[in-house]
């Protein structure tokens, strides 16, 4: 008997629409006059269509600076953290050293500590050591995330055979050379997944920039957009326009790393 897949596809389409609906609503609202955003009955297509929200977003506040700050900080944090996580994960996965289990246990248990708990101590340390400048301090909390190190360690244990490393050593490769030329290429799928996750963590971060930055021209996007929403004057029109633009880097990164991300996420899902 032939089994139709229509119900499955129907369900998937409905789920897709449910997930896309908020984004579509935001996109539509960003092109509507303020008074029409919550008009009843709701209209998906803007009528009248206006670019006024975007014009006011760019002219009324340093939006481009917020955008640039967020994007640059997130890209740098992602690049550095992916490298650090891979290196640390490799160390935990393939090297034997005194206190390894203890160190890994401490690192792993730090996953259960909310960031808010370490916020003030971290801030004090950076200030007291003279490293509290926004550009540096905005990146620091993201460069060695425990989750990333754990993820890399797990992936390396599963996917990088000891024999390959031993063979490279016999061929005279240096330890860092082995990591750079053999291990890193094998990690590409999981690095993509980690990069997307790490980018979003840094890009969406709110609490840390809030504490760290006081100059509004150095705000990150979440912080800047929130200033449009404070007090009782909730400027939905500007916030929606800003949110639509804010989505772009994350979507672009996903498109670029889509292949690696899907491979990374599906690793281990199929029996080898």
């Amino acid at each position, binding site marked *: 008997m032939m089994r139709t897949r229509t119900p499955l596809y129907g369900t998937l389409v409905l789920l897709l629409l449910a997930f896309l609906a908020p984004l579509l609503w935001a996109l539509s609202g960003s092109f509507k006059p303020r*008074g029409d955003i*919550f008009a009843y009955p709701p209209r998906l297509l803007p009528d009248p269509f206006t670019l006024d929200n975007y014009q006011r977003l760019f002219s009324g506040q340093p939006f481009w600076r917020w955008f640039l700050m967020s994007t640059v900080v997130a890209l740098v944090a992602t690049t550095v953290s992916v490298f650090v996580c891979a290196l640390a994960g490799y160390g935990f996965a393939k090297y034997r050293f005194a206190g390894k289990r203890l160190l890994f246990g401490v690192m792993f248990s730090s996953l259960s500590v909310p960031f808010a708990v370490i916020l003030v101590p971290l801030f004090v340390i950076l200030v007291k050591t003279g490293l509290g400048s926004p550009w540096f301090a905005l990146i620091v909390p993201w460069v060695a995330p425990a989750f990333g190190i754990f993820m890399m360690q797990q992936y390396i244990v599963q996917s990088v055979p000891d024999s390959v490393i031993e063979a490279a050593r016999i061929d005279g490769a240096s330890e860092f050379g082995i990591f750079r030329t053999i291990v890193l290429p094998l990690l590409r799928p999981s690095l993509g997944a980690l990069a997307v996750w790490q980018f979003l963590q840094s890009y969406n971060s709110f609490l840390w920039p809030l504490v760290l930055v*006081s100059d509004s021209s150095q705000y990150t996007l979440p912080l800047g957009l929130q*200033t449009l929403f404070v007090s009782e004057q909730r400027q939905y029109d500007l916030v929606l326009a800003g949110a639509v633009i804010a989505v772009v880097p994350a979507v672009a990164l996903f498109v670029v790393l889509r292949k690696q991300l899907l491979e990374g996420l599906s690793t281990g899902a199929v029996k080898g």
Partner: protein
Amino acid sequence: MFPAPPTRRTLLRGALGLSTAAALTACGGGSTTARTSGDVTLSLWTHDPGYEDFFRMGIPEADRLTDFRYHLDVTRAGPGDLVTKLLAQAVAGRGTPDTIGFEIGSFPRMLRGDIAPRLLHDLTPDIAAVPGLKEDLLPARLAPYSKDGGLYALDSDTPMVVYYYRDDLFSKWNLPPDTATWEEHAELGARVHKDHGASLCVVSTVGSDAGQVVQSFQMLLYQRGGAFFDAEGELVLDSPEAEETLRFLCEGLRTGFVIDISDYYGAAMQTALKTNKVVGLPMAIWYKNYGLVPNVPEQKGRWRVRGLPRFTKGGGVTAALGGTGFGVVKDKANTEAAVDFLLNTWLTHDGQVRRFTETGYLPTRRSVYEDPALNATKDDFCGGQQLFKLYRSLLPDVPAFYQSPDQSILFDVLAGNLLRAYRGDVSPRRALQQTAADYRDQAGR
């Protein structure tokens, strides 16, 4: 009988309070040379761009009245975020502002332990030094920012609660706009709902914002003569007035006199206003500028404001809701300059007049209510109504307003129990009893 051992929560809170106090102590005491004149750039933190505009426009007046020439460096963030940021910066020992605006609901965090006295300048002697000022300031607006005889912020407003109604629809539907009591108004509201599908009162049910859920009940409770806390910060919620008020709202929800809206300021309310589902509501005076004007600008000229109907069993014709107190961080080079700036912009007669004309916030000095220019002001959004005269007539009824360091705990537990009562899951009496029990359990007092 032995006293009950402290709960884990109490111990944690104690440890947190001690560590914060210790950290604040450690960061204090740094030597700063106080500026007494000349150019000074004040860092100002606020959640509201309206305040930024106000203070910038006040610079010439402050320059004229003081020995300083002021410049402002403004940082904006959410009301609760500002307090978080302030405490973190204070512990780190750098980056604190000179002046900061505390939204009234966020200020209780400063009342915990001795955070306020350690971190903020006590404005009491500065006010006492200006002849007649202390007697002129409304005590009801000093109480929320006071602790142990010290005053740590100056309020932005006398935020009376009034009744907003759609004059055009009231006329069209032949509704009397001047019902004397809430009970009559509720009967009228039930008929309006039956005939037109509209409501004359609103409660907020936004689950993620406990403060907003509590506001709906708080306004009428304070009007009725009840309160959350007394002057010592002790809980006085479980009272006959509170039960009566909550029962009134719950019955209103059954008849349709009251409508539940998920957000006073957001989509749901805007839709309800636009579709004439809400044609009247009790709210603070600032709601005109922050709720109605931005959400339904097309309804300009159709709204009117009046005092609240009275409760038959007692109470006044207004309450208080909201406000923002501006405080000064102590022991900084700019502390004196910041105090002078506040006194010479925020508290002068002209400054208080300007505050109303520019931001819609009512004066906190009694004498300013006699200002002829303010009394002649007409409001276009409310059809040319002379609102200030109305507010002046309500002034004697503004109730005192006390806060507790544990207010956030009360709001969390009260919001949940209010929603249960609104849904009919528990009786009003039970909801209040449960709130008091939950609060005492969690706050440890």
